[in-house]
Each structure stands twice: as C-alpha cells, then as structure tokens.
C-alpha cells in the first residue's frame, strides 16, 4: 500500500490533473460562494442578452440570467450525472460480467447474448430512443446511456474472470469449501477491479459529452436547471446577437472533459504500465 501511494504522488501529470479535477469539484460544491449568491435560475428581463461585463463576466441569457453563475452551477448537474452514470455502468457491467465468467453455461449465454445485442447496435440511436420515449429528464438520460454502455464492462470483467477461473488457486479455494459469494467477492472481483477502474476513469470524459449531447437535443436536464448541454441549445438561437451564450458553456464542457481525460490517461499509466 505504501508503495502504491508513492506511485501516485511521484507522477507529476497525475497530481496536476487530480488537483485540477478537485478544483472543478470544489467549484461545484461551493458554487454559491463563487457566484456571490447570484441565483442561476433567477432572471431579470430588464438585463436580458447583455454582453460580458464586470457585473456579468460571461454576459446574460435571454431571460437575463447570469451565465457565469449558470456555468458554475451547471458543473453540479454535469458532475453528479456523469459520476452516477459511470458508477452505474461500472457496477452493473462488472457484476454481470463476473457472473457470466464464473458460472459459464446458460448464465453466460443469456448475459452475453444481451450484451451482444446492445453492442451490435449504434449506441446513441438507442440512447436517444430510450431517453425520448421514457420522457426527458436527467435521470432518464442516465438510464438511456447506461442501457447501451454496460456491455463493455461486462465483456471486460468476463474475460478477466475467465483467465483465472481454471487456475489452481481458485480450484484450491473451492475444494477447501469457500462459498460462492466469498469466491466472487474475494477472488474474482479483486482480479478484475484494476482494469475496470482504469476503463471507468478513461470513460468519464466521453460519458460527460454523451450526456451533454442528450441534453443538447432536449432529452436530458430540463429548464430552468442550469446544464451545459441545454445551455448550448438555448444559445444556438442567439448565435449572431449573443455568441457568449454558446461559447462559455461549450468551453466549460471542453475544459472539464480534457481534465478528466488526462486524469484517466495518467491513472492508466500508473496502474497499468504495460499499455502506452
């Protein structure tokens, strides 16, 4: 454990991006402080569509709401929904993959055929259909992307479990009477977890973009909740008169995705030195 800690601390890239990611998380937690108590949903029609100024650093939107406050508060929606999404697909995918790999037979067949079905299918099409048909909300957007994203984790977990399934130490543990639950928890899970955590970490950025894309299409967070994707959609109609309405939310997505992608890549380098 001691050695592992040093590995994290001595990796400069990882520390820098971990720090930046922490900054974003802190910004979303302390949003009211950063915005000096400006309410992101509180509009003032007298101040609608104002260019960036000292009072409104990022300008205001058509309802006169402060875009800076909306971008900062928007990080809450984005971060919470992205992390819920990644954790959901991580847990479901790992669980089903371990079951499929450990038990084999019909359990494996059923789980993996369903996974194949999801993979043999262009992801965003189904996600849009799910989100649209279930009704537009952040929760349904998360469900929609989970439905099409878990198979990747299940396949990975399954292949990792299959690798150790027929080794001697597993057979020995079974012979000495370890219960199935104990086998899964103590032997199978630890052998898959590192690779899966790396995958999850590198997925954060792209998942954030997919959620934003759904919101942009109107199938995610609903007004007046500040969310970057839906802010871009609102800004689209005022492109020539108020370009700031679409520049800052987009920049926020871009910067956040870059930071989390870098963090994921560095994490992979630390935990899995084999890959480049």
């Amino acid at each position, binding site marked *: 454990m001691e050695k592992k800690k040093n590995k994290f601390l001595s990796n400069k890239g990882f520390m820098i991006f971990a720090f930046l990611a922490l900054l974003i998380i802190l910004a979303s937690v302390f949003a009211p402080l950063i915005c000096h108590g400006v309410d992101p949903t509180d509009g003032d029609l007298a101040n609608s569509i104002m260019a960036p100024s000292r009072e409104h650093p990022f300008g205001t939107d058509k309802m006169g709401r402060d875009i800076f406050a909306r971008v900062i508060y928007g990080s809450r929606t984005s971060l919470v929904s992205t992390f819920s999404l990644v954790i959901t697909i991580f847990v479901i995918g790992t669980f089903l993959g371990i079951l499929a790999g450990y038990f084999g037979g019909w359990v494996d067949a059923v789980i993996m055929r369903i996974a194949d079905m999801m993979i043999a*299918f262009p992801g965003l099409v189904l996600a849009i259909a799910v989100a*649209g048909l*279930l009704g537009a909300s952040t929760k349904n957007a998360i469900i929609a992307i989970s439905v099409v994203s878990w198979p990747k984790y299940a396949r990975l977990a399954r292949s990792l479990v299959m690798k150790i399934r027929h080794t001697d130490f597993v057979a020995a543990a079974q012979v000495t009477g370890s219960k199935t639950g104990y086998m899964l928890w103590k032997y199978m899970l630890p052998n898959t977890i590192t690779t899966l955590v790396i995958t999850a970490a590198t997925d954060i950025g792209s998942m954030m973009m997919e959620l934003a*894309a759904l919101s942009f299409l109107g199938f995610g967070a609903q007004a007046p909740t500040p969310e970057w994707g839906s802010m871009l959609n609102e800004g689209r109609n005022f492109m020539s008169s108020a370009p700031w309405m679409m520049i800052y939310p987009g920049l926020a997505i871009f910067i956040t995705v870059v930071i989390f992608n870098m963090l994921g890549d560095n994490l992979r380098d630390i935990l899995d030195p084999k890959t480049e």
Partner: protein
Amino acid sequence: MGKKQLASRLLQMLIVLIGISFLTFLLTYLSPGDPVRHMYLAQGRMPDEAMVAQQREEMGLNDPFLQQYVRWLGNCLKGDFGKSYSLNKPVVSLLSARLWPTLKLTLMSMALMLIISVPLGVLSAVYRNKPIDYIVRAITFFGVSIPNFWVGLLLILYFCVKLRLLPVVSSGGSFKDLILPAVTLAIAMSAKYTRQVRTAVLEELSSDYVVGARARGVKEGKILWGNVFPNSLLPLITMLGLSIGSLLGGTSVVEVIFSYPGLGKLAVDAITSADYFLVQGYVLWVSVLYMVVNLLVDLSYNYIDPRMRLRR
C-alpha cells in the same frame, strides 16, 4: 468466412434484430404518452374520451402486449411500418427519403476522416517520440475531448455568421450544404482514428520482418508502403466499419445543429412529437443498416487478407 460461418452469422443477426425490435416495441409500449391523444393533437383536434377509446380499440392498442408486438412485427416484415401521424405519411416513404442524405453525409465525413487521419497516423508512428509525433498526439487529444455539437456551433458562428461564406441552414441538396456538417463529424472521428492508425502502424513496425528488411537494405519508404501499411490495414478496416456504425446514430446531433434533412433529424423530431411508429421504424432501419455494414466489413477480410482464404 466460410458458408457455414456466414449462415451462423446471419442467424445471429436475425436473433439480434428480433431482440432489438422487441426492445423498441417494449419501450414505446411503456412510454407514458398515449399515441392516440398525440395523434389527435397533431391533427389539431381536441380529443374527447369517447373518440380516444374508440380509436384505441380500432388500432388494437387494448390488446395484450404480445399480440400487439407480433402484429406489428408481422406488418414490418411485409414492409408496412405504419403511418407517421405527425407528418401524415407512411413511415417507409419518410425513412427512404431521408436515407440518402444521411448516407451522403456519412460517406463524405468518412472520406474526410481518412484523408486527415491516415497520413497523420502514419507520420506520427514513423516519427515516434519526435516533435511531429507530440504535435499530432496533442491535436488528437484535444480532438477527442471536444464535443462535436460545440464544434458545429463554432463552425457556424465563424463561417456562416462572421464570414457569411456558407449557408446556416442546409437543405441537404448541394455540396456546399454538406461541407460544415461533414467537417464537424470528421474532426472528432479523425482524432480517434489517427490514434488507431498510429497504434496499428507502430505494432507492424516493431515486427521481425521489418528488422529483417532493414538489415537487407530495403528502402524505408518501400518497407512502409509496401509491407507495413498493407499489413496494418486489417485492424483499420474493422475500426472503419465500427465508425460507420457509430456515425449512422451519431449524425443526429449534427443534423439537428445544421437542420440537415437526414434520418437523425427525422428521428429527433419524431421523438419530440411522440410519433411512435416513426421512432420504431427508424431504430429498426438503422440497426439493420448497421449490421449489414458490419457483415460487409467482415466479408471484406477475405479479399484483403489472403490468409483468410487459405484457412478455409
């Protein structure tokens, strides 16, 4: 791929298709809206209870779920995907009218992607860990981190609003209308693909026959384009097939931004107006298309890789 493999592959496709059709139907069945009410509202009529009840009975919406599903699937197999009530036209004619614009956009962005990413990927593999490699890697890194709908908006802002070079709303007819949507799609894909080209070429470059060829004094250019590149084609074609698939679904966002009259825009509009038959038809069509493309990609291995033919 032998005949036997092909047969089992087709059977698999059939099973997946049935699964997908079941899932789509289940989703529309479970969705909170009432299609009959939406239909009346789309026609601009205020539905009253008696009318709704009668129409529901006529459309068979009160039948058990499985019965409805089997009837719908049977109609689909006969080529009848129902009628879109928001546009008041058969789903088949709507989808087929939009198919070509989306295919055109897909092909155009694929072509752009290949033009950008193959040279960049090869270049950065050959000059590994040199400045050029770092630059290419930095560009691809930003390329995968930038949301394509934002790229699209920025392109519109610059080329249509500021410079007034290109039309903001594309009718999908002319070449000019295709440029910006295709560029938008190509940027994110090129970034991913460049990385994959680089990895594939690097892997080939490190194999023994390259060392041998160099030792015999074969020219570097000949090794690269005569041996290394053809050998790294196989994984690249697989990925190309996969990206066609993700494009078919992924165009919707870009189509919405540019008001491009393709399948994706149609689907988003259909969902917004709760046009269930249209959504179901769209999902089925795209999945069939996707599977056919993947099958063709697998079949193409036979021609690209002679080993595949020998193995039979």
